[in-house]
């Protein structure tokens, strides 16, 4: 004897949060049943494994039917197929969406900055074995990234706001997605070994800085332009900063101003003084090269190699770094022959906060 068909449909859709999470995590029905049995739901309700299996399969089917709608969360509000519990529809729907779009930090670290293409999707089984996240869950997360990317790619206006409106996500999650979209669009390299110590949240923070300061939408709100691409004009102007290192006088002047300001205020003053020219060359070169798309990709690796690593080997604390960068930025404005104040501020503001965020073990 075997059950050929087994369905349960309620006028109001019953969704078990716990099972939903198991489904999202990509558990098979049988694994989910095992987890539920261990969770003790059986004793609680005098149920048998058979009943639990039937219930789990039913829930899984419901979620699969619902998944189509979750791809376009705005539709969930006026769809007719599911009637959610009349007393708490907004909460329940928000929960469904939020959990569906939630992702694992360890997963996102693997694909951050990669092209969201079929090729990347094919490699997801490697990601799955590496992170221990089920392939099914990896696929869902990847597809979510891709779906959000495709929708907002073409849209004008602020990125975070667009994501929030189209996918009905809470603020923080929308910001994270903005970061993912931004990284995917600019193809920032994040997978190199030297960058492994950085978490997704570090990158998300940096992405936020870049989106808010370096994109076209950042300067010109009226134009309603896109947030996903860096401001080309600004990148062009960054080349002008080269004068800070090519002009010998300017470089010395800058160094002396910074050293005067820092003397006695830090334990690593000597190292700082010795390294000043190197560090300054590093930062200014990064700026000058950003006009090339290829060098944009290496932005984070450059920051680490050219600045963070030297400082770290000299045992600077983050207070030292902060102090140094503050004075380094401010002193440039006092230089008489240096004219590119606006670009400098826009550039260094982001660099400083990114470095500070990235400066940890």
């Amino acid at each position, binding site marked *: 004897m075997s*059950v*050929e068909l087994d369905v*349960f*449909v309620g006028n109001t859709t019953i969704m078990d949060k716990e099972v939903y999470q198991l489904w999202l995590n990509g558990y098979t029905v049988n694994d989910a049943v095992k987890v539920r049995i261990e969770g003790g739901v059986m004793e609680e309700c*005098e149920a048998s494994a058979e009943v639990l299996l039937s219930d789990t399969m039913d829930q899984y*089917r419901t979620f699969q039917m619902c998944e189509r709608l979750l791809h376009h969360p705005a*539709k969930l509000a006026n769809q007719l197929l599911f*009637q959610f519990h*009349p007393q708490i*529809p907004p909460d329940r729907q928000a929960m469904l969406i939020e959990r569906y779009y939630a992702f694992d930090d360890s997963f996102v670290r693997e694909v951050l900055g990669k092209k969201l293409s079929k090729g990347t999707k094919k490699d997801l089984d490697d990601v799955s074995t590496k992170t221990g996240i089920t392939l099914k869950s990896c696929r869902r997360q990847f597809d979510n990234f891709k779906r959000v990317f495709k929708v907002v790619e073409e849209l004008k206006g602020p990125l975070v706001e667009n994501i929030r409106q189209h996918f009905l996500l809470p603020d923080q999650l929308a910001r994270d997605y903005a970061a993912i979209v931004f990284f995917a669009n600019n193809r920032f390299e994040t997978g190199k070994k030297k960058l492994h110590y950085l978490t997704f949240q570090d990158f998300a923070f940096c992405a936020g800085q870049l989106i808010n300061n370096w994109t076209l939408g950042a300067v010109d709100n009226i134009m309603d332009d896109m947030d996903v691409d860096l401001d080309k004009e600004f990148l062009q102007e960054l080349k002008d900063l080269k004068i800070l290192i090519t002009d010998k006088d300017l470089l010395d002047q800058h160094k002396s101003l910074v050293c005067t300001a820092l003397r006695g205020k830090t334990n690593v003053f000597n190292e700082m003084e010795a390294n000043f020219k190197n560090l300054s060359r590093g930062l200014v070169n990064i700026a000058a090269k950003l006009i090339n798309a290829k060098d944009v990709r290496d932005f984070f690796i450059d920051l680490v190699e050219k600045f963070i690593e030297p400082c770290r080997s000299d045992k600077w604390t983050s207070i030292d770094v902060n102090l140094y960068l503050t004075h380094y930025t401010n002193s440039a404005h006092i230089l008489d022959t240096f004219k590119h104040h606006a670009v400098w501020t826009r550039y260094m503001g982001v660099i400083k906060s990114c470095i500070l965020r990235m400066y940890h073990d």
Partner: protein
Amino acid sequence: MPGKLKAKIVAGRHLPIMDRASDLTDAFVEVKFGNTTFKTDVYPKSLNPQWNSEWFKFEVDDEDLQDEPLQITVLDHDTYSANDAIGKVYIDIDPLLCSEAATVISGWLPIYDTIHGIRGEINVLVKVDLFNDLNRFRQSSCGVKFFCTTSIPRCYRAVMVHGFVEELVVNEDPEYQWIDRIRTPRASNEARQRLIFLMSGELQRKIGLKVLEMGGNAVVGYLQCFDLEGESGLVVRAIGTACTLEKISSTLPATATHPSNSSPSKDMKEPGFGEEAPGVPLSSGPPTPLRAQTFSSFSPSKSYSRQSSSSDTELSLTPKTGMGSGGSAGKEAGPLKALLRQQTQSALEQRRVSSSSEAFVRTGEYPFFPLTAFPPGFLLHVGGVVSARSVKLLDRIHNPALGNTRSYKLLDWNSFTADEPETRDAWWEEIRQEIKSHAKALGCQAVVGYSESTSICEEVCILSASGTAAILSSRFMQDGPLDTEHRLSRQPLCVFSTGSERVEGDMGSSASLGFEEVVSPGCGFCHIPYDELNIPFPAQLTYCYCCRRYKVPDVLFTTIDLPTEANVTGKGCLIQARLCRTKKKAQGEGNATVISNLLPFLEYELHTQLMNKLKLRGMNALFGLRIQISIGETMLLGLASATGVYLTALPSPGGIQIAGKTPSDITYEQHISNMQKKINDTIAKNKELYEINPPEVVEEIIGSPIPEPRQRSRLFRSQSESSDEVSELDLSHGKKDAFVLEIDDTDAVEDIHALLTDFPTPAGFYSCNTEIMPGIQNWTSAIQMFTSVRVFRLNASLTSQGLNKIFSDLCENLLKSLYFKLRSMVPCCLCHLNFTVAIPEDELIQVAVTAVAMSFDKEQLLENGKQSGEKTLIKAITENDEQLQFNLELNAETPSPNPLSSPKGLSEVGSHLSARALSVDYSSFADRCSSWIEQLKLKAHTIRRGSVKTTSSMEKASPLPEGRSRSLRSNRSYSGSSVAVVKMTPLSFIPGAKIIKYLGIINMFFIRETTSLREEGGVSGFLHTFIAEVFAMVRAHVAALGGNAVVSYSMKECVFMENPNKNQAQCLINVSGDAVIFVRESELESTSVQTQSATTHTSNGAEGT
């Protein structure tokens, strides 16, 4: 003449992508009614088209308006090839034809395709301008109201009950026409859907005509069924009760609706009261003498037949095979003589005589009522279940070109579809005659809770009918005294709502109602209607345990709901008997014979099982009994479901005693005594579980319900053989009335196993298949209607016993799954659990369940008169919570200010209530009836209803509910993005809410087919989606009518066929119900609570005694 149908296509949304190149759709809409078609413009490149069309107007006969659906087809325009259909919407415009129902259909309706399912939604507006037709010979019956509800609808009262109406129409099934071989599955499905729509419309119209003829204006308990007979055609049949209903004016200020309605309804009433009145159904022919008989039978001296159930089953054991193949005997289907038992012989003869003498009896002569609940005082006595089955061979309609000799013969009298209804009519005629004679044998003039069903396998068809023989009060019949009506009309209450009051009235005034004066409402219906000397079976009659005056049977089986006024001890529970029997494969007549031979045994065993299970639970009556027998090629399935209760009026059931036939062996003896012990333990446990502790209670409360109780009961005692009485109150098992099971009997062993393997319901759950569970009143508003379907594949070569076990486990496991699913609603009761079994193909068993889970408040379960006041308090508070949520959901735009809606205000009121106990109505009732505890439990209902009454009278002054409902709707459209919540329930009411308007009947038929079964998630995925879609479509249509709930919802048909090898499946679903508008009682009450609490202050204190 006449009516003008107007439709406007507003917009579409969520359309599917039809053009892969652009990922968009160029949609337009065809609107078709009858043979007229209109088209909208093409709205290019959009998935959310805004057509905003003109009003398309159709000028049509009202006959067509009733028969035809409005058909809306959404298409994708294609310049080069044929336009692709996206999907269709069928709109039943019947609700618009009745002025008291809906006035406009407006809203988003799912666009449905039989292959792809729901594909987006379309927003439409539909209206009808109807000109009244006063032609006497008209063919239309616009204005007759239809209700699926099997009781008098909540906001109406019955002025008159006219009687039974039935009709059937027959057509060829498009799926079996030759053209089906060359058309697409989609075209075939759509042809079928459309045909069934047309047939339902026609059927409804014809029934309506009959109702008008009888002088009624409504059909209550409208039950429509399909018989998919395959090659021989498609039968749509319906039964119902014709009534004259009147809207209760206080419920709805009907100034707007009544005048417009007046002309059709007056039309109907005139003949009803006038010339025709005496001549029509129930007053004519047999009923009158019968009623006279029953009057006399009240002196408990004469007698008849009975012992409720077993005798009934015996009586119904008259399977007949229709000798379909021509000959003069064909029409008068010859019974298989061998099967007839002595007792049934006479009944059958009688049937034959009657049916031959009055070949086609006017349908009006059947005193049948599909109703299952009645206005108090309507149902006087209940005899027991009567049922009849008949096995028929379906006549094939062969294509003449291909026909062999046999089919040519058949063609003689069955080649034209026009002949078909005659044949089918004659079949049902026979069955109804038989039912009628069974009822007569039980001394009853009427059959209530009547239903008809079929089971078809290949060319064999079992027709079944069952009901409960009963004696009804003449008050609501046509010849009832007019003053009764007057008296009724003075009461602003729905006749249903307060049983107590009605009875009071009877006691106080009417002399014409003779014996009712002395019969207490709680036990009267249990008293035997038949003559006790003529009982053909050894039935045990005792004096009623309530009034001690009349005889009652030891068990009572019925197909109706538990009467609200009945005295019940403890709670009830679902009781099922399940049986599976193998049979040999056979063809044609041989097959029919085999089935006929098996039927009696099947029924007998089902009955025994029911009886055993009933006793095991310590109960003595079954309500809502449904016996379903389903035939397959190699087996027969029988499923009997009912709700067991302990009726206080009936004697306590004896236990079950096991007796061994060969008492020689000691271990054997031990085995038996072990089993006996187990059974005794189970009985004891069940009694505790269902709170059945009758004897003491009986002694205490005896005699209290009626004005001069003491004397009467004493009188009784002295009259009756008292020693016997006392011993019968004894609970101990092993008395003479104990049920003896002989263990030698293999069947008995099986039975005992079946008894002991039934799993108890988990804590916090109750279940029943009736509308409500006795002993639970304090429902919260949390309800969850659901449908669950399971199909099991059996291994070949199973014995009948093995099959039995599997089938029983199947049902048990299904129930267990339901309990688990609904665990969040605990404490709750699964009400109206309706099981349907089918054998879709060899070795498959399909079980479908539709029911509603309703939560209730646990604390209030403690039954005590004093606490009922608190019940109302808590109730009020919870309802207030609900209301807040409700408001929230509707964007909090309640038009009427609720001064008392703050919890504080309420709790103040509540404390008054709890201190002073009860409201006005109740106390006046209580004065008369004094305090009887059992009654009290039941009447917590009355308390609530009573408060409604106050409310409704208040309401005239407060904002109109009509306006309120409109505001609901405007809110709905206003809120835009969110979809209105539509509740669905198989019950006739919604807990904590008041139905203020019936919008019309919902009767929908859908077919879904797939050729990519695996891709859609296999059979389960396919059916899951389909059922969810059906729900969605029902909800959308109800919302478009302006409703917010469906009551009396049922899924009548769920035919599922699969062919996994071809990756195909097909499913047909037919659902029906009544679309209604309800308003939360808290919303209604909020304004009147103040007044109410004031009245409670002044006028009470009777409680606590």
